[in-house]
């Protein structure tokens, strides 16, 4: 996996320059990096930020959120995009903040996806898994890498994947067929795998979906990188709160060694 092996993330305070509800309970939050007092490193797809959703001693843990996009990183006025689903109090407070509010960020953290060296890649996103994979697709567009993106959602009202703005091929599907094609992300991806040759598969989504995609990829002998989710405290490798079992009896430290892992390292579990 590529990315920040050394801890290079720093703490910064940024202004929200945009916050829109883009679907169901999904919000697109744009943060202005310009005013941030420290030079944040350019984030890579798959990396994340630890975001402080409220101030004060009463809110002690940050929330990990993937980078969904960056704009003009090397120019003044650059900004960071997060795609946030409102699922609990932390994400709810973040989504409720109005433009102009400030938010504390720590990052970019973790190791992101490794860019494919050659050939075509398959990107498979389930639900909010679209957040990092959309960023990945845009970065691949920059270097004219070939890919297909499958973005699956439960239904149309929680679907957000503006595929038209991407250069690569792609399909949006929903389990109930209420938007895009009817079907699951894994089902669609399996179809793509039958029709095309891929040199690499990238997956982010619910645990069961990633487990299934990994199985398909390993069977087809295609290298597969998965972005894991785990509840985090520190996000920087000091607390071991995010550790989950690896396939070789080892522990995977999701925040620091991950969140992106080669699928063969992962022991799939049922997270509650």
């Amino acid at each position: 996996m590529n990315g920040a092996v050394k801890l290079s993330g720093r703490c910064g305070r940024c202004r929200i320059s945009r916050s829109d509800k883009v679907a169901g309970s999904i919000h697109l939050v744009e943060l202005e990096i310009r005013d941030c007092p420290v030079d944040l490193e350019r984030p890579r797809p798959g990396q994340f930020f630890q975001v402080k959703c409220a101030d004060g001693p009463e809110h002690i843990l940050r929330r990990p959120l993937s980078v969904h996009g960056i704009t003009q990183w090397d120019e003044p006025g650059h900004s960071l995009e997060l795609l946030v689903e409102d699922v609990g109090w932390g994400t709810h407070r973040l989504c409720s903040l109005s433009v102009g509010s400030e938010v504390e960020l720590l990052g970019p953290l973790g190791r992101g996806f490794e860019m494919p060296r050659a050939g075509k890649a398959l990107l498979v996103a389930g639900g909010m898994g679209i957040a990092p994979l959309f960023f990945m697709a845009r970065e691949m567009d920059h270097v004219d890498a070939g890919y297909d993106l499958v973005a699956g959602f439960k239904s149309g009202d929680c679907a957000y994947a503006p595929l038209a703005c991407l250069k690569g091929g792609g399909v949006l599907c929903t389990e109930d067929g209420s938007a895009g094609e009817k079907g699951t992300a894994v089902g669609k991806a399996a179809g793509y795998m039958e029709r095309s040759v891929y040199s690499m598969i990238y997956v982010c989504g619910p645990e069961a979906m990633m487990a299934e995609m990994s199985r398909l990829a390993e069977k087809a002998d295609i290298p597969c990188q998965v972005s894991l989710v785990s509840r985090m405290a520190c996000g920087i490798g000091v607390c071991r709160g995010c550790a989950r079992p690896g396939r070789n009896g080892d522990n995977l430290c999701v925040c620091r060694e991950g969140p992106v892992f080669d699928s063969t390292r992962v022991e799939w579990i049922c997270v509650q």
Partner: protein
Amino acid sequence: MVDLSIKLAGIDLKSPLVLASGTAGYGVELASICGYSGLGAVTLKSLTIMPRPGNRSPRVWETTGGMLNSIGLENAGVDAFLSDFLPQLNELGVPLIVSIAGETAGEYALLARRISGAPGSIVAIEVNVSCPNVEKGGLMFGAEPQASGAVTSAVVENTGLPVFTKLSASVFDIVRIAEAVAAAGASGLSLINTLPGMAINPVTGYPRLGTVSGGLSGPAIKPVAVKAVWDCYRATGLPVIGGGGVYNALDVVEFMRAGATAVSIGTATFQNPCRFEQIACELPDIMNRTGALRPADLVGSVKV
């Protein structure tokens, strides 16, 4: 000008601020984000003789004003620590407090010998007694005065370093335990460890932690910690590393007034890895407002 330096059981530290065990890893990770200036010492995550994989995921859950954790003492084991981490740490130059955890008094003694033979920045040993006592059917050592004392003796007899025994406040009478630890020759006390707690997802019915229950830390427990510090300080007079829910410099002064010579910062590090630096910046101003010239002036100064 306020001078932040302290003397803790004979150890000279340039600041009363100490990072708490388990919340600062092996001390090297934070160093790459924050400088270690303003810090008195780093307490390392508890070491055991053999490496431990730790507990089942999920291991953390946020609660109102605090968090639950069930890391399960995941650590690389004392040998890997001494060979892989200590050399790097010695280069950083920050004083280290090494926390040890065992399942028998003999394991504590062995750990103490290993640590004491190591060169470099180690200034003290912290004895984590919130571990199951395998010889006593799994009851936590820290639950009983005798077991706490026995473990402390085992360590004291096997080291020349100052020994701080770290107590749990989830006992009825912490003072009796503190007294037993004092009688066993501890140089000081470290207070408090997490409180046992549990959380359940009401909708699904699953516990929030993979191990069902875990330890509660953070600002929520501060009043319990302040009381434990005051009770033990008053009863034993031993130097105390006090903490539990410290969030800002006002909290640091509160713990000093309750009797803490040094003050530990744990969970607050998760809100901001550089929190201790911010606290170190705020501290002189708060101390000025109390009229204190050095931390020692504040220790145990609560007006009761």
